[in-house]
């Protein structure tokens, strides 16, 4: 399938893509940007990448409302953008559904909203939706695991999820489960952590006790993965392969070194925010996306979730985020 690692030598990120005449300065565009609390490497990278992207354009004025996990506060941040009359809003909601009404309000006020990563539940609430592929991430991880241990019917597969209450976690787990099913495997042990190093370590310590022998382990997130790896090392376990998620530079370096259990990681692009900023700018300036024949910015962009292994890590390492 299209998600298999072999085909992933097509460009994974979009960061350095669309160049050319679109980058020439136009009217100044004021963009409001709001995301959840950057209490986590990937989330911090999202905001950072958006800021860096904006800095590259002299015609973009990015207003960053610092991240929060309180939907009430995030709503009021967007309201502030509406009051300010920004030209576009790039919004990575803490909870897509909860931010839908205020996004609708912005759209009604004539401000295009670019929805990033966590989807609204009303298509009218966003002009453009930039999505990672959470389900696809699970599928990629599942397929990789299938390739490695699929023949062994007694194989033990474990999963360390992120914050369980997020839809994205549920999508990832679903994808993982579905992909495993195709090779007759299932998740034998599953724990949820909280996207923090400490939570990863704690969850993994317990999990390693729950499963005395593991063949493959998928950890949703490379940030909490630092803790997961620490727990594995403390427990002196190395009988299994581990697959990461999100694709931090740290994880990739470990894959490159090839000295640990971490055999692969599934990328979840941290450039989504930057893409959101780029598209917001194009949208406001009435430009089209360079390499498409279409004359306006597309409605939905879904980013690809490739698997990074020892074989192709050098290709992804430069664009990976530091946790």
């Amino acid at each position, binding site marked *: 399938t299209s998600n298999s690692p072999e085909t992933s030598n097509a460009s994974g990120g979009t960061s350095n893509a669309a160049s050319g005449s679109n980058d020439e300065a136009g009217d100044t565009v004021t963009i409001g940007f709001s995301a959840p609390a950057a209490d986590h490497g990937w989330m911090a990278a999202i905001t950072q990448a958006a800021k860096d992207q904006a800095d590259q354009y002299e015609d973009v004025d990015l207003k960053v409302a610092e991240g929060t996990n309180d939907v*009430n506060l995030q709503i*009021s941040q967007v309201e502030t953008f*509406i009051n300010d009359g920004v030209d576009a809003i790039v919004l990575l909601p803490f*909870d897509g*559904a909860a931010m839908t009404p205020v996004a609708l309000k912005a759209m009604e006020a004539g401000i295009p909203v670019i929805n990033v990563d966590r989807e609204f539940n009303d298509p009218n609430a966003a002009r453009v939706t930039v999505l990672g592929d959470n389900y696809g991430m699970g599928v990629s991880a599942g397929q990789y695991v299938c390739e490695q241990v699929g023949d062994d019917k007694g194989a033990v597969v474990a999963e360390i999820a992120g914050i369980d*209450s997020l839809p994205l976690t*549920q999508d990832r787990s679903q994808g993982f489960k579905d992909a495993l099913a195709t090779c007759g495997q299932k998740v034998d042990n599953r724990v949820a952590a909280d996207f923090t190093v400490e939570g990863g370590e704690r969850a993994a310590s317990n999990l390693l006790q729950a499963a005395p022998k593991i063949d493959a382990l998928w950890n949703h997130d490379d940030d909490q993965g630092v803790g997961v790896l620490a727990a594995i090392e403390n427990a002196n376990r190395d009988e299994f392969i581990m697959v990461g998620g999100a694709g931090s530079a740290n994880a990739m370096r470990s894959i490159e070194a090839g000295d640990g259990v971490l055999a692969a990681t599934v990328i979840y692009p941290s450039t989504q925010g930057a893409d959101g900023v780029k598209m917001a700018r194009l949208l406001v300036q009435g430009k089209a996306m360079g390499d498409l024949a279409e004359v306006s910015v597309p409605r939905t962009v879904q980013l690809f979730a490739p698997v990074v292994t020892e074989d192709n890590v050098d290709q992804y390492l430069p664009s990976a985020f530091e946790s």
Partner: protein
Amino acid sequence: MNESSTGLSAPGAAAPAETPSTEPAVPVTAAEPNGTAGGRALAGMAVLRSSAGRNLGLVVALGLLCVVGVVTAGDRFADVDNILTILRLAATIGVVSIGMTFVITGGGIDLSVGAILALASVWSTTLATQAMANDVHWLVMVVAALAVGAGCGLVNGLLIAYGGVVPFIATLAMLASARGLAEILSDRRTQIINVPAFREAFNGEVLGIPVLVLIFVLVAVVGWIVLNRTTFGRRTLAVGGNPEAARLAGIRVQRHTVMLYVVVGLCCGIAALMLVARTTTGSSTHGTLYELDAIAAVVIGGTLLSGGRGTIVGTVFGVLIFTTLSNVFTLNNLSISVQSVVKGLIIVVAVLLQQRLASRSKT
């Protein structure tokens, strides 16, 4: 809890006996017993004046914040829409804080407000409730949220008043349980509401003022009246000030304590509805850490954490200060981390200032 609960006995701090909240400035009192309209009006003014006096520090703090807002963000801050944004943001946590004021004044504390809010938001937006709301009336959702809030409050209250569990612990347990329940009930999914009538009712405006803000104002006014002008309020002060003396004076302390927790539970139910309307969702993650925000606002406002003295006006100021702070930070693109540090500083400075003012007004 009494004074010694501060865990210290600095001579200055040992007796922070400020004039209690209901006492108007002295000279007018004499005129009041006549009960004439004039006397009442005067008394009313005196209340305002003395409450302004007591809340001087808060007024100044909020004023300063506004000045900073205007200087740094100019018209963007001093804009009607922006003020309404601040108020809308303040409304939810404000309603919770009003309830918290009652519990704290009554000598308790409630760490479970955020969790109760989450549970109420989830319960009032389950598929079943929504179906019923669409069939019958959107008030079904309101009833559900209020019932959950009051129910959780009742459990808290019973555990504390009759079970003898200290409030901190009983509500800590409720915090864990209610949030767990909310997660189980919602299967940790965000529940989107699909009851247009409900959304219209809550998200509308009356005379240009958002309904959410009106609810906040209403709850604050009712709260003020109840605390300062009713027997319930007076008993709350007595129960918080000296529960044993209150009991021996014939107040049903246990029953009253239960009622206080039901009140804060109800406030959480109201706040849950407001948040559901604002986000069009019910979720087990709603209201995370509201307990700390609410307690901070209440204490900044001048309510004594050890009970026996409470001020609704102060609480409203406390909420507004924190909300305005966060608005000013957003307008200026400043980071949440710095905001967090500033918030800590504000808490300390406000409390220290209050003590200074209180001790000065005494001599």
